[in-house]
Every structure is written in C-alpha cells, then in structure tokens.
C-alpha cells in the first residue's frame, strides 16, 4: 500500500513539472491537447500486426521531453508503472496466435508476439504522451482546454474531480494503512478481517473528505469553472505547433515511412 501511495504522490509531482517555463510550457494548452489527440488517434488506429511503422512516432515524445526539459527517467518510470496492466492485456496473444508472421533468420516470430509488441509499443506511446501532456500543461489546464475545445463542462469538471479524488483516496489510504501497521506490532494485523473493515472505512472517509474539499472549493467562489493562472491565447506559435506536428503525424500515418526509407536506400520500389 505504501508503495502505491508513493507512486501517486509522484504523479502529483508530474503536475508540478507543469510550472516550468520552456517554450512548450508557454504554449496555449489547447494546441498541446489537440496535437496529443491527433497523435493518439494516429497511433491507436494502426492494425494489430503493425510494429515497425510505430517507431517513427517516438520522435514526438522525445522532442517534447527535450524541449520542455522534463526529466526523462522520471517519465520512463511512470510509464513502467503501467506495464503490468499492459502485460495483463497482451500476454495471451502469443499463446493463442501462433501463426508465423516474420522470419528473423532461422527464427520464426508468430503473429501473437508481433501483436503483443505492437500493443506494448502503442501503450508506451500513448501513455507517455499523456504524461508528457500533463507534465508540460498541468491537469487543470488540460481539462480547461478540453472544455474550450467543445467537451461539455460537466465532463471536464468530472474529470478534474476524478483526478483529485485519486489523490484524496491514496492519501487517506496511506494514513489508514500506516495507522493499522503501527498498531498491529509487525504481525499481519488481524488478517483479512481488519483489512476488509479498513477498506470499508476508507471509502467512507474518502468520500467525506472529498465532500469537505468540495465545500472548501465552493467556499472560495468555485462555480464549476476552472481558471488557470497561466493566461494565453491561441496565436501564431500555437498554430505553427499544431500544424507542424499534426501534419507530421498524419503523414506518418498515411505513408509507411520505414518502408519508404528502406526503398529509398535500396533504390527499389515496393
């Protein structure tokens, strides 16, 4: 429990990265959200056996991380945190799908492994982009941008509360499990019994705290509208940013770039 607690606190520090002041940070949130959406759409729209075509897309996260000065290792660790889930989703592909699709020398690679690798790559790309987006924009600003881009306000606010609720829940669970650990004197507490009552208790507590925080927000003039402290408009830099990246993604999506490169080098047409 303690390690989850720490991981989520780390997630909060992702939000802190958004206080940076690079050229990417200064861009209007809408431009970044738009570009990220186009990116994600392009990446997930590939078929399940496509792998090589995904690699050129890594240029976007890499350029963003270096331009915004985000700590690459930190982002990488956050992505790794998600890997168990992806593994759970994709791990059966190699078992069920044994048709040989690729030959690497004497080694035959089955379709299952290819699709597994494809899922993994696509998850890393999309999740990484999500983290980077929050890291250069801040979650509040992302929600705000989504709303300005036409998402109904109710959903935007819901999303924000969900995000806050995760923190409230982990903070409460961190406290409760610490209290339990301290009083169980190194033994396993009272086993499953005390654990289940702890969980029930936790949900109630979290709910109450979330309610009190909501009250505090209302007490400070919250009317369902979020204001970012960074003020910006959709100007020339935003248009350039959105245009260049989106065009690149769509180009990458429509053309098979690795193959194109290969044929250029070998001078053959496919």
């Amino acid at each position, binding site marked *: 429990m303690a390690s989850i607690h720490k991981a989520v606190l780390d997630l909060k520090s992702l939000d802190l990265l958004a*206080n940076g002041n690079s050229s990417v940070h200064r861009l209007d949130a809408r431009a970044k959200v738009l570009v990220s959406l186009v990116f994600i759409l392009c990446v997930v729209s590939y078929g399940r056996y496509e792998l090589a075509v995904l690699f050129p897309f890594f240029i976007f996260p890499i350029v963003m991380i270096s331009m915004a000065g985000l700590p690459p290792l930190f982002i990488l660790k956050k992505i790794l945190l998600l890997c168990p889930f992806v593994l759970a989703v994709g791990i059966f592909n190699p078992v069920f799908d044994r048709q040989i699709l690729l030959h690497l020398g004497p080694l035959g690679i089955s379709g299952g492994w290819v699709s597994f690798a494809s899922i993994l790559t696509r998850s890393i790309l999309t999740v990484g982009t999500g983290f980077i987006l929050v890291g250069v924009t801040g979650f509040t600003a992302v929600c705000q941008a989504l709303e300005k881009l036409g998402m109904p306000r109710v959903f935007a606010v819901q999303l924000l509360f969900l995000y806050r609720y995760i923190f409230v829940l982990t*903070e409460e669970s961190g406290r409760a499990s610490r209290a339990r650990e301290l009083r169980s004197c190194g033994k396993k507490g009272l086993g499953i019994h005390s654990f289940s009552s702890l969980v029930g208790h936790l949900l109630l507590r979290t709910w109450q705290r979330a309610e*009190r925080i909501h009250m505090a927000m209302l007490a*400070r003039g919250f009317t369902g509208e979020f204001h970012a402290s960074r003020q910006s408009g959709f100007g020339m830099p935003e248009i350039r940013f959105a245009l260049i990246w989106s065009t690149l993604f769509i180009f990458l999506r429509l053309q098979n770039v690795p193959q194109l490169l290969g044929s250029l080098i070998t001078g053959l047409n496919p």
Partner: protein
Amino acid sequence: MSHHIVEVKNLQHIYSDGTAAIKDVSFIITHGESVGIIGANGAGKSTLLQHLNGSLEPTGGSIHIGHTPLTKGTLPDIRRTVGMVFQDPDDQLFMPTVFDDVAFGPLNLGYTPADVEERVTEVLELVGAGHLRDKPPYHLSGGEKKRVAIATVLSMSPDILVMDEPTNGLDPFARRQLIKLMRDFKHTRIFTSHDLDMVLELCNRVIVLHEGVVRADGPTLEIFNNDKLLSECRLEKPFSMQGCPVCSSAIK
C-alpha cells in the same frame, strides 16, 4: 451588503446519524465585532461555524448575513462575504502548489493575473509563508498548512472572517503573528478556539456553547470570571488570569 450583521435564529442541526450537534442556538453579531466561540470538545462549535457560509444546511432555524437570508440562491454572494478557515487544513488545500491554492479564490472572483500575483504574494507574506509559495501543500508541516489555509481565505478579502481554531498547531511566533493579523482585520471576526488567552486578547465578546446550546453570551471578562459557569462547561480561566503558579506557590 454594507452592514455585515450575522444573525442566527433558533439554529438546529441533526447529523444524518441522529446526533443533535446544535439544538437551539441564537445570536446576533454586529459589524466589526470580534467574537470568540468557546466550549468543550464536541460542544458543536465546528458544526455551528460551518453553517455560517452554508457548508452545512440547518435542520431548523435560519441564518441571515447582512439582512440577506442564507438560501441556495444567495449562497454564492454569501460565500464571497464570509471567509472560512476550516479546522483541518487538509480539507482546505487541494491545488498542486501553495501559490495555485492561494490564487484559486481570487481567480474565481475574476481578478486579472497580475492582480492575483500581487494579492497572493501579499497575503503569503502576511501569514509568513512567502518562502513556501512553490511547494506542494502536502509537503508542508502542520502549522505551515494552517498558515497557508488562512492565506487562501485572506486572499479573497472577505468582509466577515470565520475561523475554526486558527492557532491550533502554530508555533508561538506564528501565533503572535496571527493574533496581530486578526487585530488589524477591521471587519467582523468570529472564531472558535481552545486558546483562551487568545480569546481574551482579541475578543470583547464570548459565546459559550455547551452540548449544542448557548450557555452564556457576554463580555469576555465577565464570562472568564464566572468560575461556576466555566467548570460546568469543561472550561478554565485563561492562563493569564490564573496568576503565576510558580510565584504563587512560593508565597504559600
């Protein structure tokens, strides 16, 4: 709202589990008054305060702020008038950094970014938390959180300041600072505290709550000199009125 009168009439609050936390409370607090609400643990102080900005809905009775009844429709206006510091600062801080948290209120009030910046810097200095502005609130000490929570409310320039145990967890210096700050605040102040010396120093009027009803309401000195009342309500004289225990035991 020119006259920030707070009028509570026959207020009653029963929690959903059946606990009658406030049974029958009435009082009128006029503009510029500084009133201390004291009472034992569980007397209903926090419950009472949370009604003053509509955080809790009364089960019975009514509340008027500056002659405006507290209803759903008037709530936004009343919340702008009444600044509220909760007992637990963790309930009050929810943004990624101290700066964002203090800026939350002013941004909602529609200040321009430049004004917000200025206002936030100003109030953080006022509570002695200027050096904390870029820290995340969950990395602060208890007393630091409390000070930031107070700043979040001051940043909205409320006309009525309501605080639930403001000096709880503050070091002596920060407590002094807060007392000075509250003395300089010219509008209505209402707060609960177990720090009776602070109540003595800041308030000319005290309301004593006991098991959900008003046991006494009057001038501070009069109440603190009423030994029978104090002991019945599980209270004591402020230390500064008790005489020095070291010196007096030397005389005996």
